[in-house]
Protein backbone atom coordinates (compact mmCIF):
# COMPACT_ATOMS: atom_id res chain seq x y z
CA UNK A 1 0.00 0.00 0.00
CA UNK A 2 1.47 3.29 -0.99
CA UNK A 3 1.43 6.13 1.48
CA UNK A 4 2.04 9.79 0.90
CA UNK A 5 3.43 12.79 2.66
CA UNK A 6 1.52 16.02 2.28
CA UNK A 7 1.57 19.63 3.33
CA UNK A 8 -1.88 20.71 4.46
CA UNK A 9 -2.62 24.41 4.93
CA UNK A 10 -5.49 24.65 7.40
CA UNK A 11 -7.54 27.61 8.64
CA UNK A 12 -7.02 27.78 12.42
CA UNK A 13 -9.34 29.95 14.45
CA UNK A 14 -9.77 29.60 18.19
CA UNK A 15 -13.39 30.72 18.38
CA UNK A 16 -15.97 32.90 16.66
CA UNK A 17 -14.50 36.13 18.03
CA UNK A 18 -10.80 35.43 17.45
CA UNK A 19 -9.03 36.18 14.18
CA UNK A 20 -7.87 33.15 12.24
CA UNK A 21 -5.06 32.32 9.85
CA UNK A 22 -3.85 29.62 7.50
CA UNK A 23 -1.29 27.31 9.17
CA UNK A 24 0.79 24.78 7.21
CA UNK A 25 1.14 21.24 8.62
CA UNK A 26 3.18 18.29 7.41
CA UNK A 27 1.26 15.03 7.53
CA UNK A 28 3.08 11.78 6.84
CA UNK A 29 2.11 8.20 6.11
CA UNK A 30 -1.32 8.94 4.60
CA UNK A 31 -2.87 5.89 2.92
CA UNK A 32 -4.22 6.44 -0.58
CA UNK A 33 -7.31 4.53 0.56
CA UNK A 34 -8.02 7.01 3.35
CA UNK A 35 -10.84 9.46 2.95
CA UNK A 36 -10.05 13.15 3.23
CA UNK A 37 -11.51 13.20 6.75
CA UNK A 38 -9.39 10.19 7.72
CA UNK A 39 -6.35 12.09 6.52
CA UNK A 40 -7.36 14.89 8.91
CA UNK A 41 -7.81 12.26 11.65
CA UNK A 42 -4.21 11.12 11.01
CA UNK A 43 -3.03 14.73 11.11
CA UNK A 44 -4.91 15.30 14.38
CA UNK A 45 -3.30 12.21 15.95
CA UNK A 46 0.08 13.60 14.96
CA UNK A 47 -0.85 17.00 16.45
CA UNK A 48 -2.05 15.43 19.70
CA UNK A 49 1.21 13.44 19.94
CA UNK A 50 3.09 16.72 19.69
CA UNK A 51 0.88 18.27 22.35
CA UNK A 52 -0.84 20.65 19.93
CA UNK A 53 -4.53 21.44 19.67
CA UNK A 54 -6.22 19.15 17.09
CA UNK A 55 -8.09 20.69 14.17
CA UNK A 56 -11.86 20.98 14.65
CA UNK A 57 -13.92 19.92 11.63
CA UNK A 58 -17.53 18.81 11.16
CA UNK A 59 -18.38 15.22 10.28
CA UNK A 60 -20.96 12.64 11.21
CA UNK A 61 -22.02 9.69 9.07
CA UNK A 62 -18.99 9.66 6.75
CA UNK A 63 -21.26 7.98 4.19
CA UNK A 64 -22.06 11.07 2.13
CA UNK A 65 -25.63 11.52 3.30
CA UNK A 66 -25.69 13.51 6.54
CA UNK A 67 -24.54 16.88 5.25
CA UNK A 68 -22.23 17.59 8.18
CA UNK A 69 -18.86 17.51 6.44
CA UNK A 70 -17.98 20.68 4.67
CA UNK A 71 -14.45 21.94 3.86
CA UNK A 72 -13.29 24.09 1.00
CA UNK A 73 -10.45 21.99 -0.42
CA UNK A 74 -8.08 23.65 -2.87
CA UNK A 75 -10.67 26.28 -3.68
CA UNK A 76 -13.60 23.92 -4.31
CA UNK A 77 -16.32 22.80 -1.87
CA UNK A 78 -15.86 19.12 -0.95
CA UNK A 79 -12.72 19.12 -3.11
CA UNK A 80 -14.49 19.59 -6.41
CA UNK A 81 -14.98 15.95 -7.40
CA UNK A 82 -18.41 15.73 -9.06
CA UNK A 83 -21.23 14.49 -6.85
CA UNK A 84 -18.93 13.84 -3.87
CA UNK A 85 -18.91 14.97 -0.25
CA UNK A 86 -15.63 15.53 1.59
CA UNK A 87 -16.02 12.24 3.49
CA UNK A 88 -16.31 10.37 0.19
CA UNK A 89 -13.28 12.08 -1.33
CA UNK A 90 -10.29 9.77 -1.25
CA UNK A 91 -6.63 10.55 -0.90
CA UNK A 92 -5.85 8.63 -4.09
CA UNK A 93 -7.05 11.78 -5.84
CA UNK A 94 -3.96 13.53 -4.46
CA UNK A 95 -0.25 12.97 -5.14
CA UNK A 96 2.64 12.47 -2.76
CA UNK A 97 4.10 15.88 -1.90
CA UNK A 98 0.90 17.84 -2.72
CA UNK A 99 0.13 21.08 -0.94
CA UNK A 100 -3.56 21.14 -0.01
CA UNK A 101 -5.48 24.21 1.17
CA UNK A 102 -8.36 23.52 3.56
CA UNK A 103 -10.72 26.32 4.57
CA UNK A 104 -14.14 26.58 6.18
CA UNK A 105 -17.21 27.68 4.19
CA UNK A 106 -16.99 31.46 3.86
CA UNK A 107 -20.27 33.34 4.26
CA UNK A 108 -21.59 36.02 6.57
CA UNK A 109 -24.55 33.75 7.25
CA UNK A 110 -22.22 30.87 8.21
CA UNK A 111 -19.95 32.31 10.94
CA UNK A 112 -16.88 30.23 11.80
CA UNK A 113 -17.27 28.62 15.22
CA UNK A 114 -13.80 27.13 15.37
CA UNK A 115 -11.16 26.15 12.78
CA UNK A 116 -13.12 24.47 9.99
CA UNK A 117 -16.53 24.34 11.73
CA UNK A 118 -19.16 26.87 10.70
CA UNK A 119 -22.58 27.56 12.15
CA UNK A 120 -25.22 26.55 9.60
CA UNK A 121 -28.20 27.50 11.76
CA UNK A 122 -29.21 29.94 9.01
CA UNK A 123 -30.31 26.95 6.92
CA UNK A 124 -32.51 25.74 9.79
CA UNK A 125 -34.13 29.16 10.03
CA UNK A 126 -35.02 29.04 6.33
CA UNK A 127 -36.40 25.55 6.76
CA UNK A 128 -38.47 26.55 9.79
CA UNK A 129 -40.00 29.40 7.80
CA UNK A 130 -41.80 27.04 5.44
CA UNK A 131 -39.97 23.81 4.66
CA UNK A 132 -42.81 21.60 5.82
CA UNK A 133 -46.34 20.56 4.92
CA UNK A 134 -49.33 20.79 7.19
CA UNK A 135 -50.80 17.32 7.70
CA UNK A 136 -53.77 16.06 9.62
CA UNK A 137 -53.11 14.05 12.73
CA UNK A 138 -54.58 10.59 13.12
CA UNK A 139 -53.77 7.35 11.41
CA UNK A 140 -51.40 7.43 8.47
CA UNK A 141 -53.14 7.49 5.07
CA UNK A 142 -52.80 4.48 2.79
CA UNK A 143 -49.61 4.49 0.78
CA UNK A 144 -50.04 5.64 -2.84
CA UNK A 145 -53.60 6.84 -2.21
CA UNK A 146 -52.70 10.14 -3.91
CA UNK A 147 -51.66 9.64 -7.53
CA UNK A 148 -48.32 11.27 -8.36
CA UNK A 149 -46.82 11.30 -11.85
CA UNK A 150 -43.52 9.44 -12.08
CA UNK A 151 -41.76 12.49 -13.57
CA UNK A 152 -42.97 14.69 -10.70
CA UNK A 153 -41.92 12.13 -8.11
CA UNK A 154 -38.49 11.89 -9.73
CA UNK A 155 -38.00 15.65 -9.71
CA UNK A 156 -39.15 15.87 -6.09
CA UNK A 157 -36.72 13.10 -5.20
CA UNK A 158 -33.81 14.72 -7.01
CA UNK A 159 -34.42 17.93 -5.07
CA UNK A 160 -34.98 16.05 -1.81
CA UNK A 161 -31.48 14.59 -2.17
CA UNK A 162 -30.20 17.91 -0.78
CA UNK A 163 -28.34 17.18 2.44
CA UNK A 164 -28.07 20.84 3.46
CA UNK A 165 -24.28 20.81 3.57
CA UNK A 166 -23.92 24.39 2.33
CA UNK A 167 -21.54 23.69 -0.56
CA UNK A 168 -23.75 25.87 -2.80
CA UNK A 169 -23.28 28.85 -0.48
CA UNK A 170 -19.55 28.13 -0.20
CA UNK A 171 -19.10 27.92 -3.98
CA UNK A 172 -21.19 30.98 -4.84
CA UNK A 173 -19.10 34.11 -5.45
CA UNK A 174 -21.94 35.99 -3.74
CA UNK A 175 -22.47 33.62 -0.81
CA UNK A 176 -26.02 33.00 -2.01
CA UNK A 177 -28.15 30.15 -0.67
CA UNK A 178 -30.56 30.01 -3.60
CA UNK A 179 -29.78 26.43 -4.63
CA UNK A 180 -30.43 25.18 -1.10
CA UNK A 181 -33.71 27.06 -0.72
CA UNK A 182 -34.79 26.14 -4.24
CA UNK A 183 -34.08 22.46 -3.59
CA UNK A 184 -36.21 22.53 -0.44
CA UNK A 185 -39.04 24.29 -2.30
CA UNK A 186 -38.87 22.04 -5.37
CA UNK A 187 -38.93 18.96 -3.17
CA UNK A 188 -42.35 19.99 -1.82
CA UNK A 189 -43.70 21.76 -4.91
CA UNK A 190 -43.43 18.75 -7.17
CA UNK A 191 -45.81 16.83 -4.91
CA UNK A 192 -49.55 17.24 -4.28
CA UNK A 193 -48.93 17.53 -0.53
CA UNK A 194 -46.90 20.68 -1.13
CA UNK A 195 -49.54 22.53 -3.16
CA UNK A 196 -51.85 24.09 -0.53
CA UNK A 197 -49.12 26.27 1.00
CA UNK A 198 -47.02 26.60 -2.13
CA UNK A 199 -47.01 30.36 -2.79
CA UNK A 200 -46.91 31.28 0.87
CA UNK A 201 -44.02 28.86 1.38
CA UNK A 202 -41.98 30.34 -1.48
CA UNK A 203 -42.42 33.84 -0.01
CA UNK A 204 -41.67 32.78 3.55
CA UNK A 205 -38.53 30.79 2.77
CA UNK A 206 -37.08 33.41 0.40
CA UNK A 207 -37.72 36.12 2.99
CA UNK A 208 -36.02 34.00 5.66
CA UNK A 209 -33.08 33.44 3.30
CA UNK A 210 -32.73 37.19 2.74
CA UNK A 211 -33.02 37.91 6.47
CA UNK A 212 -30.22 35.43 7.21
CA UNK A 213 -27.73 37.55 5.26
CA UNK A 214 -27.09 35.35 2.23
CA UNK A 215 -26.08 37.06 -1.02
CA UNK A 216 -28.02 37.28 -4.26
CA UNK A 217 -27.88 35.04 -7.28
CA UNK A 218 -25.90 36.32 -10.29
CA UNK A 219 -26.54 33.18 -12.32
CA UNK A 220 -22.92 32.04 -12.15
CA UNK A 221 -24.09 28.44 -11.50
CA UNK A 222 -21.07 27.60 -9.32
CA UNK A 223 -23.60 26.12 -6.85
CA UNK A 224 -24.78 23.54 -9.35
CA UNK A 225 -21.18 22.50 -10.08
CA UNK A 226 -20.35 22.21 -6.37
CA UNK A 227 -23.46 20.36 -5.18
CA UNK A 228 -22.50 16.88 -3.97
CA UNK A 229 -26.02 15.75 -4.85
CA UNK A 230 -25.98 17.29 -8.35
CA UNK A 231 -29.05 19.43 -7.77
CA UNK A 232 -29.89 21.42 -10.89
CA UNK A 233 -30.30 25.17 -11.23
CA UNK A 234 -33.69 24.36 -12.74
CA UNK A 235 -34.88 24.33 -9.13
CA UNK A 236 -33.86 28.00 -8.81
CA UNK A 237 -35.90 28.87 -11.91
CA UNK A 238 -38.90 27.15 -10.33
CA UNK A 239 -38.35 29.09 -7.09
CA UNK A 240 -38.14 32.36 -9.05
CA UNK A 241 -41.45 31.55 -10.76
CA UNK A 242 -43.18 30.62 -7.52
CA UNK A 243 -41.86 33.68 -5.74
CA UNK A 244 -43.06 35.92 -8.57
CA UNK A 245 -46.45 34.27 -8.67
CA UNK A 246 -46.69 34.60 -4.91
CA UNK A 247 -45.78 38.27 -5.08
CA UNK A 248 -48.20 39.29 -7.79
CA UNK A 249 -51.06 36.83 -7.40
CA UNK A 250 -51.08 35.44 -3.89
CA UNK A 251 -53.73 36.72 -1.49
CA UNK A 252 -51.96 37.01 1.84
CA UNK A 253 -53.37 35.27 4.84
CA UNK A 254 -55.64 37.30 7.04
CA UNK A 255 -53.54 37.47 10.16
CA UNK A 256 -55.98 39.71 12.02
CA UNK A 257 -58.87 37.32 12.38
CA UNK A 258 -58.85 34.29 14.62
CA UNK A 259 -59.83 31.91 11.85
CA UNK A 260 -62.11 29.00 12.45
CA UNK A 261 -59.68 26.87 14.35
Amino acid sequence: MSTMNLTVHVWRQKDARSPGKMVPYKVSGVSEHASFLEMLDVLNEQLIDKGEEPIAFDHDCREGICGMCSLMIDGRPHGGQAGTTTCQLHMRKFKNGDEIYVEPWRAAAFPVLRDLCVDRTAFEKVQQAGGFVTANVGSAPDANSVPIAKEAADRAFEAAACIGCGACVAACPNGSAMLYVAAKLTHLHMLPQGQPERLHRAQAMVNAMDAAGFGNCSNHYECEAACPKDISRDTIALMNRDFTKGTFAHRPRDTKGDGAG
Partner: protein
Amino acid sequence: MSWFSSYVRSSIGAKQVMAATGLAMVLFAIVHMLGHLGMFSGQDAYNAYAHFLQTLGGPKWIARGGLLAVFVVHVASAMRLVARNRAARPVAYAVYKPVRSTLMSRTMAMTGLVLLAFIIYHLLHFTLGMVQPEFFHKLDQAGRYDAYSMFVRGFQNVGIFASYLVAILLLSLHLGHGASSWLQSLGLRHPKYSPKLDKLGPAISLILFLGYMAPPTAVLLGLIKLPGA
Protein backbone atom coordinates in the same frame (compact mmCIF):
# COMPACT_ATOMS: atom_id res chain seq x y z
CA MET B 1 -43.74 48.48 3.64
CA SER B 2 -45.99 47.74 0.69
CA TRP B 3 -45.84 44.36 -1.00
CA PHE B 4 -44.21 45.91 -4.05
CA SER B 5 -41.37 47.62 -2.21
CA SER B 6 -40.64 44.45 -0.26
CA TYR B 7 -40.63 42.61 -3.61
CA VAL B 8 -38.00 44.88 -5.18
CA ARG B 9 -35.93 44.73 -2.00
CA SER B 10 -36.00 40.93 -1.89
CA SER B 11 -33.16 38.96 -3.44
CA ILE B 12 -35.31 37.48 -6.21
CA GLY B 13 -37.23 40.71 -6.78
CA ALA B 14 -33.97 42.65 -7.18
CA LYS B 15 -32.73 40.07 -9.69
CA GLN B 16 -35.95 40.39 -11.64
CA VAL B 17 -35.65 44.17 -11.67
CA MET B 18 -32.15 43.71 -13.14
CA ALA B 19 -33.55 41.22 -15.67
CA ALA B 20 -36.46 43.41 -16.79
CA THR B 21 -34.48 46.65 -17.05
CA GLY B 22 -31.59 44.81 -18.69
CA LEU B 23 -33.93 43.27 -21.24
CA ALA B 24 -35.43 46.67 -22.06
CA MET B 25 -31.94 48.04 -22.71
CA VAL B 26 -30.99 45.03 -24.84
CA LEU B 27 -34.05 45.69 -27.01
CA PHE B 28 -33.05 49.35 -27.27
CA ALA B 29 -29.48 48.31 -28.17
CA ILE B 30 -30.79 46.14 -31.01
CA VAL B 31 -32.99 48.93 -32.43
CA HIS B 32 -30.16 51.45 -32.00
CA MET B 33 -27.80 49.15 -33.91
CA LEU B 34 -30.30 48.61 -36.73
CA GLY B 35 -30.68 52.38 -37.03
CA HIS B 36 -26.95 52.89 -37.43
CA LEU B 37 -26.70 50.21 -40.09
CA GLY B 38 -28.54 52.89 -42.10
CA MET B 39 -25.10 54.49 -42.57
CA PHE B 40 -24.67 51.99 -45.41
CA SER B 41 -27.70 53.45 -47.22
CA GLY B 42 -26.03 56.83 -47.68
CA GLN B 43 -26.41 60.37 -46.42
CA ASP B 44 -29.96 60.99 -47.54
CA ALA B 45 -31.50 57.87 -46.00
CA TYR B 46 -29.53 58.18 -42.76
CA ASN B 47 -30.32 61.86 -42.29
CA ALA B 48 -33.99 61.17 -43.08
CA TYR B 49 -33.99 58.55 -40.30
CA ALA B 50 -32.26 60.94 -37.89
CA HIS B 51 -34.71 63.70 -38.87
CA PHE B 52 -37.66 61.35 -38.27
CA LEU B 53 -36.42 60.51 -34.76
CA GLN B 54 -35.65 64.11 -33.87
CA THR B 55 -39.02 65.43 -34.94
CA LEU B 56 -41.01 62.81 -33.05
CA GLY B 57 -41.68 65.32 -30.30
CA GLY B 58 -43.67 63.87 -27.41
CA PRO B 59 -42.94 60.18 -28.08
CA LYS B 60 -39.22 61.01 -28.30
CA TRP B 61 -39.23 62.54 -24.83
CA ILE B 62 -41.31 59.70 -23.42
CA ALA B 63 -38.82 57.21 -24.85
CA ARG B 64 -35.87 59.20 -23.52
CA GLY B 65 -37.44 59.50 -20.09
CA GLY B 66 -38.27 55.79 -20.02
CA LEU B 67 -34.76 54.81 -21.07
CA LEU B 68 -33.22 57.08 -18.47
CA ALA B 69 -35.46 55.62 -15.76
CA VAL B 70 -34.66 52.04 -16.81
CA PHE B 71 -30.97 52.88 -16.90
CA VAL B 72 -30.92 54.55 -13.48
CA VAL B 73 -32.87 51.69 -11.89
CA HIS B 74 -30.53 49.10 -13.47
CA VAL B 75 -27.37 50.87 -12.25
CA ALA B 76 -28.69 51.68 -8.78
CA SER B 77 -30.03 48.17 -8.29
CA ALA B 78 -26.71 46.68 -9.47
CA MET B 79 -24.76 48.78 -6.99
CA ARG B 80 -27.01 47.71 -4.15
CA LEU B 81 -26.72 44.05 -5.15
CA VAL B 82 -22.93 44.19 -5.42
CA ALA B 83 -22.72 45.75 -1.96
CA ARG B 84 -24.98 43.06 -0.51
CA ASN B 85 -23.06 40.28 -2.23
CA ARG B 86 -19.74 41.58 -0.94
CA ALA B 87 -21.20 41.74 2.57
CA ALA B 88 -22.36 38.13 2.24
CA ARG B 89 -18.73 36.96 1.92
CA PRO B 90 -16.79 39.15 4.38
CA VAL B 91 -13.67 36.93 4.46
CA ALA B 92 -12.25 35.87 1.11
CA TYR B 93 -10.94 32.38 0.41
CA ALA B 94 -7.17 31.91 0.33
CA VAL B 95 -7.75 29.64 -2.67
CA TYR B 96 -10.90 29.80 -4.81
CA LYS B 97 -11.32 28.09 -8.15
CA PRO B 98 -14.41 28.94 -10.14
CA VAL B 99 -15.43 26.18 -12.55
CA ARG B 100 -18.87 26.96 -13.97
CA SER B 101 -19.04 30.74 -13.99
CA THR B 102 -17.59 32.59 -16.96
CA LEU B 103 -15.26 35.53 -17.26
CA MET B 104 -18.31 37.40 -18.58
CA SER B 105 -20.45 36.63 -15.53
CA ARG B 106 -17.71 37.42 -13.02
CA THR B 107 -16.89 40.80 -14.58
CA MET B 108 -20.47 42.13 -14.83
CA ALA B 109 -19.91 44.89 -12.26
CA MET B 110 -16.64 46.02 -13.87
CA THR B 111 -17.92 45.95 -17.47
CA GLY B 112 -21.12 47.63 -16.29
CA LEU B 113 -19.25 50.51 -14.66
CA VAL B 114 -17.12 51.10 -17.76
CA LEU B 115 -20.27 51.03 -19.90
CA LEU B 116 -21.84 53.62 -17.61
CA ALA B 117 -18.87 55.90 -18.26
CA PHE B 118 -19.02 55.13 -21.99
CA ILE B 119 -22.71 55.92 -22.27
CA ILE B 120 -22.13 59.33 -20.67
CA TYR B 121 -19.27 59.94 -23.12
CA HIS B 122 -21.41 58.72 -26.02
CA LEU B 123 -24.21 61.14 -25.12
CA LEU B 124 -21.71 64.00 -24.80
CA HIS B 125 -20.34 63.03 -28.21
CA PHE B 126 -23.39 62.52 -30.43
CA THR B 127 -26.36 63.89 -28.49
CA LEU B 128 -24.91 67.00 -26.85
CA GLY B 129 -22.03 67.52 -29.32
CA MET B 130 -19.44 68.34 -26.69
CA VAL B 131 -16.70 65.93 -27.83
CA GLN B 132 -16.32 67.26 -31.37
CA PRO B 133 -18.33 70.52 -31.35
CA GLU B 134 -16.82 71.59 -34.69
CA PHE B 135 -18.79 68.81 -36.48
CA PHE B 136 -22.02 69.26 -34.57
CA HIS B 137 -25.20 70.92 -35.82
CA LYS B 138 -24.19 71.15 -39.46
CA LEU B 139 -27.06 70.94 -41.97
CA ASP B 140 -27.24 68.89 -45.16
CA GLN B 141 -28.49 70.10 -48.55
CA ALA B 142 -32.10 69.32 -47.62
CA GLY B 143 -31.74 71.55 -44.57
CA ARG B 144 -31.77 68.62 -42.17
CA TYR B 145 -29.36 68.06 -39.35
CA ASP B 146 -26.39 66.26 -41.00
CA ALA B 147 -25.98 63.25 -38.70
CA TYR B 148 -24.35 61.29 -41.53
CA SER B 149 -21.37 63.63 -41.89
CA MET B 150 -20.99 63.94 -38.14
CA PHE B 151 -20.82 60.13 -37.91
CA VAL B 152 -18.20 59.93 -40.66
CA ARG B 153 -16.04 62.72 -39.22
CA GLY B 154 -16.25 61.13 -35.78
CA PHE B 155 -14.97 57.74 -36.82
CA GLN B 156 -12.31 59.05 -39.17
CA ASN B 157 -10.58 59.81 -35.87
CA VAL B 158 -8.63 56.66 -34.88
CA GLY B 159 -8.73 57.54 -31.17
CA ILE B 160 -12.51 57.81 -31.16
CA PHE B 161 -12.79 54.61 -33.18
CA ALA B 162 -10.58 52.80 -30.63
CA SER B 163 -12.62 54.05 -27.67
CA TYR B 164 -15.83 52.81 -29.28
CA LEU B 165 -14.21 49.49 -30.14
CA VAL B 166 -13.26 48.94 -26.48
CA ALA B 167 -16.71 50.01 -25.27
CA ILE B 168 -18.55 47.74 -27.72
CA LEU B 169 -16.28 44.84 -26.74
CA LEU B 170 -17.20 45.40 -23.09
CA LEU B 171 -20.88 45.71 -24.03
CA SER B 172 -20.61 42.33 -25.76
CA LEU B 173 -19.01 40.76 -22.68
CA HIS B 174 -21.70 42.29 -20.44
CA LEU B 175 -24.52 41.00 -22.62
CA GLY B 176 -22.82 37.65 -23.24
CA HIS B 177 -23.93 36.91 -19.68
CA GLY B 178 -26.82 39.32 -19.23
CA ALA B 179 -28.74 38.61 -22.42
CA SER B 180 -29.36 35.01 -21.38
CA SER B 181 -29.20 35.41 -17.59
CA TRP B 182 -32.53 37.29 -17.51
CA LEU B 183 -34.36 34.11 -18.52
CA GLN B 184 -33.18 32.29 -15.39
CA SER B 185 -33.95 35.29 -13.18
CA LEU B 186 -37.52 35.41 -14.44
CA GLY B 187 -37.77 31.65 -13.99
CA LEU B 188 -38.11 30.95 -17.72
CA ARG B 189 -36.38 27.62 -17.88
CA HIS B 190 -37.48 24.37 -19.45
CA PRO B 191 -35.51 21.41 -20.80
CA LYS B 192 -37.22 21.82 -24.19
CA TYR B 193 -36.06 25.37 -24.81
CA SER B 194 -33.26 26.18 -22.39
CA PRO B 195 -30.36 24.45 -24.19
CA LYS B 196 -31.07 26.72 -27.18
CA LEU B 197 -32.00 29.82 -25.17
CA ASP B 198 -28.76 29.62 -23.16
CA LYS B 199 -27.00 30.61 -26.39
CA LEU B 200 -29.14 33.74 -26.70
CA GLY B 201 -26.72 35.93 -24.75
CA PRO B 202 -23.60 35.06 -26.75
CA ALA B 203 -25.61 35.26 -30.01
CA ILE B 204 -27.04 38.72 -29.23
CA SER B 205 -23.58 39.86 -28.16
CA LEU B 206 -21.98 38.75 -31.39
CA ILE B 207 -24.71 40.31 -33.53
CA LEU B 208 -24.49 43.60 -31.62
CA PHE B 209 -20.70 43.63 -31.82
CA LEU B 210 -20.69 43.09 -35.59
CA GLY B 211 -23.63 45.42 -36.19
CA TYR B 212 -22.28 48.25 -34.06
CA MET B 213 -18.71 48.04 -35.34
CA ALA B 214 -19.55 47.63 -39.05
CA PRO B 215 -20.34 51.31 -39.86
CA PRO B 216 -17.38 52.80 -37.90
CA THR B 217 -15.03 50.23 -39.44
CA ALA B 218 -16.33 51.06 -42.91
CA VAL B 219 -15.66 54.74 -42.17
CA LEU B 220 -12.14 54.02 -40.98
CA LEU B 221 -11.43 51.90 -44.06
CA GLY B 222 -12.80 54.63 -46.33
CA LEU B 223 -15.77 52.57 -47.55
CA ILE B 224 -18.20 55.13 -46.13
CA LYS B 225 -17.09 58.62 -47.19
CA LEU B 226 -18.22 62.18 -46.67
CA PRO B 227 -20.61 63.34 -49.41
CA GLY B 228 -18.59 64.60 -52.35
CA ALA B 229 -15.32 63.21 -50.95
